[in-house]
């Protein structure tokens, strides 16, 4: 496995990297303001809309976009498709940072962060709370992801010393790597269980909002719809990233692998859409989609994106060409993201006197988190054996 991945090398401080660093720096400043003057000083969050983009994007959409590691683990380790091994590490890396940054965003969002450890104290924990399940599961999964990514890091340390910063060069890591590999199957298994649990529970979070959530999104099937769409987004990000990274780093695209992976997308999207439509019909909510308002408009945008993803992925010939494949993945990521925004923000209506649109500062903080994620990804693929060896493709 170590023979398949190589550090990319090359300059780290490129121009895009510096721009990202600038956005991240600005976001850090705003985060400092938030910690001194309160959440209201930087955000438009209010008592009617207690959750905004920090939850809807950074956590709910962000972790679904970071489901590449989970989706590939399902394929490689559960369904035993060893041929996709080369894609596991880049996917895992994106998952590591997607989830870690979601965790970091939670600490910006929650008002009484110093009490966060109480989630892990049995006499405070409330097992009836879906938030408890999500928070507990996501925290564990962040740990599991870092452990799953450890072999790449340790290999990097032992095999490519010359590329590494000085402080890690002298570690003796071979023993640790071997021990870790022996128990890795446990972490991989837990690493499939946990996202299955919390990606569905992220949907369940909105069950208790009851009638405050529009019938276009309020359904007992929220956990199932969130789980299916998260897995689909997982495959979509693997394809999106695979093509984007290859073009960006001027490497050959792993077309045969990506083509095969994309084979599951039409089925997943089809099943999702079938459940979504039948659920709306059974609940008698279809009429709501034809009212003229922002909610129904966004409902159609969301589902049009799903259909676009399906239309691009369905023809077998499309899946062998980078462009339609990329578009399909892109539309799928957009569809899942808009679905999550709709469920948490657009479809949520606490009453006539409340409104929410993210403030400038709030948006910059989210963009800063995304920037950091991309910077970390760029740094690590250049310094550690993550991406598949170029001639392998």
């Amino acid at each position, binding site marked *: 496995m170590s023979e398949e991945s190589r550090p990319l090398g090359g300059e780290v401080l490129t121009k895009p990297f510096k721009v990202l660093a600038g956005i991240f720096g600005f976001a850090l400043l705003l985060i400092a303001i938030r910690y001194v003057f309160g959440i209201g000083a930087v955000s438009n969050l209010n008592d009617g809309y207690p959750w905004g983009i920090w939850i809807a994007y950074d956590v709910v959409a962000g972790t679904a976009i970071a489901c590449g590691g989970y989706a590939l683990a399902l394929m490689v380790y559960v*369904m035993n498709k060893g041929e996709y091994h080369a894609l596991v590490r880049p996917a895992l890396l994106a998952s590591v940072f997607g989830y870690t940054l979601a965790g970091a965003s939670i600490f910006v969002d929650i008002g009484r962060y110093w009490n966060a450890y109480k989630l892990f104290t049995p006499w405070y*924990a409330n097992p009836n709370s879906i938030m408890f399940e999500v928070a507990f599961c996501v925290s564990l999964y962040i740990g599991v992801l870092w452990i799953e990514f450890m072999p790449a890091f340790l290999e990097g340390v032992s095999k490519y010393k010359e590329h590494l910063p000085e402080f890690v060069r002298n570690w003796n890591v071979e023993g640790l790597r071997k021990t870790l590999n022996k128990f*890795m199957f446990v972490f991989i298994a837990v690493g499939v269980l946990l996202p299955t649990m919390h990606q569905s529970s992220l949907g*369940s979070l909105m069950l208790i909002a009851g009638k405050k959530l529009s019938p276009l999104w309020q359904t007992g099937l929220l956990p199932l719809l969130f789980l*299916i769409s998260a897995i689909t987004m997982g495959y979509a990000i693997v394809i999106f990233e695979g093509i984007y990274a290859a073009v960006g780093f001027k490497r050959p695209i792993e077309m045969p692998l990506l083509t095969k992976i994309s084979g599951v997308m039409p089925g997943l999207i089809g099943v999702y859409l079938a459940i979504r439509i039948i659920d709306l019909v059974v609940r008698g909510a279809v009429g709501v989609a034809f009212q003229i308002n922002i909610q129904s408009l966004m409902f159609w945008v969301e589902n049009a994106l799903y259909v676009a993803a399906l239309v691009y992925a369905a023809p077998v010939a499309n899946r062998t060409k980078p462009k339609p494949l990329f578009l399909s993945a892109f539309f799928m990521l957009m569809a899942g993201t808009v679905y999550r925004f709709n469920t948490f923000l657009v479809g949520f209506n606490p009453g006539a006197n409340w409104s929410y649109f993210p403030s400038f500062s709030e948006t910059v903080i989210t963009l800063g988190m995304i920037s950091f994620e991309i910077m970390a990804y760029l740094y690590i693929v250049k310094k550690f054996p993550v991406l598949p060896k170029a001639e392998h493709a």
Partner: protein
Amino acid sequence: MEIKRRDFLKVAAAGGLLVASNAHPALARDPKTRSKDALGFLYDSTVCTGCKACVSACKQYNEMPQSSSSPQDPLWDNPLDTDSKTYNIIKLYKNGTGEIKDREQDGHAYVKRQCMHCVDPACVSACPVSALTKDPKNGVVSYNKSACIGCRYCQLACPYNIPKFEFEKTFPQIRKCQLCSHRLEKGEIPACAEFCPTGATVFGKVEDLLAEARKRLQYKPGSKQVYPVERLNGKAVAEREVTPYIPQVYGEKEGGGTQILYLAGVPFDKLGMPMLGERSDAQRSETIQHAIYKGMVAPIIFLGGLLYVVHKNTKDHK
């Protein structure tokens, strides 16, 4: 090697077992019932004159600061809604000319808003760290700031938008009515009821309040009747001419029931009360969650399967 879509769907289905069972939950959580000793208010909108003595008393006895809706001229305490400085408020419904009290058309009416102390509170179910709890005896829903992580899920969950958050503070808290628990401990009654001069808000055991509310619905409009003031079965009473009621006790069943009951002469949705079913959102949410996670049986079986398959497959790969 070719991916077999059927294989994939099989695995997806196996994982989906975790969540699929919720479509028709077999283990529906039973609805919660009111404690016999549950305490609360009966608020009668037709009796209320909108004097706001309750708002002022609530502030005073809960040591809450002034909340001004006009920041340019913050002379008065005049919040438009309950907020992080206001646990209790009187709101006005007005239609057309607004001349006749408690009439829907061309009339006006008052409504008191505060924590409803739900029988099955969404906030208590939602809170991940048990910072919101319901007293098993008197049913008061209280907040414990030393547990709260400030995630605001209680705000999202509450159908009445009652928990309020101090967005402007460095170290914020959730704020809401706790039925003057500090006064109940001393044998006193909640400030809003004690200082209500008309008897619009009366304090008592919820089952007695419900009986009183049902009795009032039988009163003939125009007849003179005796209304208790401050508390049920207390000394203070007032005689008044009955005006027509909407034949409904809001809070008896709404959202699984509340400990604050309402009577009014104007439909409750006009007064801004949410129209809720009889099943609480907490019951629905917990039923689905427990169907998936009861005893952690499904996750443990799923994990067992995963451990076996992954162990086997990682060996193959070596």
